[in-house]
């Protein structure tokens, strides 16, 4: 496990007008989707809900369906990544708008969008299962695509200059250059982000297979619906079976798909020395050694090669063969700014119109108060999780023998969709009559705390030996050791973990502040519960308000809190 830079963080720290514009555009698109599909959706007959039953023997089939949805979403995310990121990297004018939009989408709690997208897709394919399937796939897509696109964009922007010059001097066409240089260079970062996306995806698949928006409810055959049914029927044994299936599926996914990909991706790292501990994968080894499989794959590889070397000339976005005269370029720029300003102004007006039709300032203030409550909850719990896991992580990280075993477990736990565990907790809260405002809070970091743990372990493992020896040599012990030696050393790693955890926690808040167990509903105060309740009631203006408010807070928190910390860590605490 190595530290990767967090996409977008290295960039400027303060929100700019571009971010504001991007934010307005994102919300306006949501409003557009909702108001556009509302008309279509009203006369919609209930989609014939495929029957999900709690027989254990159905679980493998459900698992397969769920996994296929994940695959479909991942494929869509890849296509989106290639197109969107390439557009951003090749066109300066597109970049001005698209990157802030991506930035907002990335820091926004996507689970809140679920209701919009479900409505939209059901409207596209009225009364058909396909609509519901698309909605689920799209929900997973929204949880996967942004960070992948960001990683790809950053890779495209940092392609080594000398390799770029080689490609140009050999006159590679845009298409050839993309496949020979840009895509391979981006592979390591992209694979890492795909894995992160996958972890997030499981969480969403569980949430999106069985969902009720107003009077429309969908249930698709899959583990998520199975679980939802089990919760409705208060069947603890079925919940347990679902969790077990999930464990097996994630494990298989990791071994059969991701391990080989990671091992294969190591080849694309741009580094001068062969590293001794390259990742390995038994599946990849089998593939490479089996002559039979090789023979099967050779024609495929051959035709792929033909495609990659095809002398296709991609239009060079924004880089016209003849650079237009300066004045013309400035003119186009101003036209572009004007267009954006008009679009943003129109979007802002539409949003206000939509939301203010039913809601007033009172509601906005309420949403703001609730978001503050959730923010306090997230910050306090991240702090608590840090207090627990940082010492443990350091202890483990300094003992390579133990770290070797714990590290994969921690990473696995981070991938586990923790919402399947909620029923147990809720059952406990109901049984013991505990205060939901306090005890539901813990669900927020339930799944995300592992990011802190495995990043801290990675940091402590990578802590330079000579510094450890200096500390021992000067008898630096106790609090001094933590303050001056270990904490600064692991900070950049801890930071990565805490930031990922914080992002995930906002998402988790939407499902964790409003949890059901059969007919029992347990609710905590917070914007998550606000959104969840509005979703159930199909109250779209309130959902828009809730999601927008949450997005504003998350974005501001990222910009003013996390990014400043990150800039400081970059400047002061880098060990290489």
């Amino acid at each position, binding site marked *: 496990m190595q530290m990767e830079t967090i996409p977008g963080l290295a960039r400027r720290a303060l929100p700019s007008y571009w971010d504001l514009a991007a934010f307005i555009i994102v919300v306006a698109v949501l409003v557009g989707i909702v108001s556009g599909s509302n008309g279509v959706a009203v006369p919609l007959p209930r989609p014939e809900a495929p029957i999900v039953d709690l027989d254990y023997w159905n679980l493998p089939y459900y698992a397969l369906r769920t996994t296929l949805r994940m695959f479909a979403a991942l494929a869509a995310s890849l296509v989106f990544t290639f197109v969107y990121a390439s557009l951003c990297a090749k066109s300066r004018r597109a970049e001005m708008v698209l990157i802030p939009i991506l930035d907002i989408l990335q820091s926004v709690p996507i689970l809140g969008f679920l209701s919009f997208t479900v409505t939209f897709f059901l409207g596209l394919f009225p009364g058909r299962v396909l609509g519901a399937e698309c909605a689920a796939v799209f929900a997973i897509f929204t949880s996967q695509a942004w960070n992948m696109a960001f990683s790809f964009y950053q890779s495209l922007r940092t392609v*080594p200059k*000398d*390799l770029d*010059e*080689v490609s*140009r*001097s*050999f*006159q*590679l*066409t845009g298409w*050839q250059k993309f496949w*020979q*240089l840009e895509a*391979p260079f981006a*592979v390591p970062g992209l694979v890492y982000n795909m894995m992160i996306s996958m972890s997030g995806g499981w969480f969403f698949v569980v949430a999106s297979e069985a969902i009720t928006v107003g009077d429309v409810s969908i249930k698709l055959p899959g583990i998520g619906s199975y679980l939802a049914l089990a919760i409705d029927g208060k069947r603890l044994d079925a919940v347990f079976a679902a969790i077990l299936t999930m464990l097996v599926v994630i494990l298989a996914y990791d071994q059969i798909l991701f391990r080989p990909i990671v091992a294969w991706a190591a*080849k*694309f*790292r*741009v*580094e*001068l*020395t*062969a590293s001794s501990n390259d990742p390995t994968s038994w599946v990849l080894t089998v593939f490479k050694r089996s002559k039979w499989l090789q023979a099967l794959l050779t024609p495929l590889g051959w035709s792929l090669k033909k495609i990659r*070397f095809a*002398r296709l000339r991609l239009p060079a976005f924004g880089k016209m063969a003849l650079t237009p005269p300066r004045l013309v370029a400035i003119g186009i720029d101003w036209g572009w700014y004007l267009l954006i300003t008009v679009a943003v102004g129109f979007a802002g007006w539409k949003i206000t119109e939509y939301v203010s039709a039913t809601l007033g300032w009172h509601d906005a203030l309420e949403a703001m108060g609730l978001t503050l409550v959730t923010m306090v909850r997230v910050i306090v719990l991240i702090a608590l999780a840090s207090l627990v896991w940082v010492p443990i992580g350091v202890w483990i990280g300094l003992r390579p023998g133990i770290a070797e075993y714990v590290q994969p477990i921690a990473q696995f736990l981070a991938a586990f969709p923790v919402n399947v565990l909620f029923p147990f907790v809720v059952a406990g809260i109901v049984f013991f009559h505990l205060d939901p405002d306090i005890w539901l809070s813990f669900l927020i970091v339930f799944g995300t705390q592992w990011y802190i743990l495995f990043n801290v372990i990675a940091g402590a493992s990578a802590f330079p030996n000579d510094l450890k020896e200096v500390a021992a040599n000067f008898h630096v012990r106790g609090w001094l050791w933590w303050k001056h030696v270990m904490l600064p050393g692991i900070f950049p790693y801890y930071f990565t973990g805490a930031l990922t955890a914080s992002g995930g926690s906002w998402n988790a808040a939407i499902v964790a502040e409003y949890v059901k167990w059969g007919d029992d509903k347990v609710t905590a105060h917070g914007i998550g519960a606000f959104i969840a309740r509005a979703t159930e009631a199909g109250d779209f203006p309130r959902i828009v308000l809730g999601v927008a408010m949450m997005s504003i807070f998350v974005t501001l928190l990222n910009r003013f809190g996390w990014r400043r910390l990150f800039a400081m860590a970059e*400047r*002061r605490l880098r060990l290489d």
Partner: protein
Amino acid sequence: MANANAATLLDVEHVHQRYRNASGEEGSLVLDDISIKLIEGEIVGLLGRSGCGKSSLLRIVSGLNRPSEGNVTFLGTPVTGAVDGVAMVFQSFALFPWMSVLANVELGLKVQGVPDDEARRRALSAIDLIGLDGFESAYPKELSGGMRQRVGFARALVVNPKILLMDEPFSALDVLTAESLRTDLLDLWTEGRMPIKSILMVTHNIEEAVLMCDRIILLSSNPGRVAAEIRVTLAHPRNRLDPEFRQLVNEIYARMTARPVQREPPAKDGAFPGLGLGMALASVSTNSLAGLMETLATKPFDGHAGLPNLAEETGMEVDELFPIAETLQLLRFAEMGDGQIHLSEAGQRFVNAEVDVRKKLFGDHLLSYVPLATRIRRVLDERPTHRAPLNRFLSELEDYMSDDYADTTLDAVTNWGRYGEIFAYDEAAQIFSLEDPT
């Protein structure tokens, strides 16, 4: 080898290049009116120090960059982008890490749509020619630096270029490896086993230029101009110990250390006449400065050395040695000229002094002879808070030079100023002050 009626392959006419900052505005000159011809059958070296724009020139010749003014023609056709018939070898090798040696070499053929089996055959013969047999399936990260650069050569040669461009191809290699590659390349060249008609190489290594080139074009720095053109008529293989060879090397050293008549860019200097803020400085550590003075003061030099000898004694390349020597000259700790360096009286005092006295002496000289240091100190003295942000000086410098040079220059003066204790600097806040850290 070059003869008068051989064909002109490449013609560079009155090329100018200007800095471009981030917002696309053009700044001061990098290359000033460069005209070069490349004739069939010769190896031409562009020799100059860092900052003379020799790599920029090579990229203009190859069609990777466009000049601000002037023309480049290759076989009579204007160069407006990368052209067939010109191949380049890079200082950093620039191999694709995810491709095997064979795939790297085949790349140029594949993109042209050469059929697979022909591409394979030609790549293998290039690999064979350059001495890479047995490494076809290896990946670059498995190879040593010398082997990697051989891949770089094979990749350039396989497309049958007329001209081979080399951007400091041996400077990332250790001394022995570099020598073996040079010899191999020269052997292939003199035996006529390569398809190329002419080689244009960029280097900062004087001996390398004399060893390999038929013609050496000496570039001056800031902005780059053609300072001299030197013909080398020694027969290959050349012997480094040959008196004629040594004579030539010394001569070039002398030319390169000659004080340029006009160093500061004259145009924009009007704002602060005589201050010379526009002087671009190299980032040289005070330890190197002290080290060179100490070396000069001791035997066998006793305060006086020929630069080639000094380079040999310290094991440094011109590119490393010159900035240090020039900084000493700027600070009046040494005098340079005619390929010689001479420790000044102040330099002698510095060498004999204790740490605190050294710092005081260094600080005094810094304030007296480095205009930027004087300026920073004066601004700090004048301000009631005795504090000033880094950016204040950076933007002032950027009126005179490119952003990169401004960064390096300010960085150098900041470090010298901290050592000489003429001001303090807070890295995190990027603020100069007169405070002593408590």
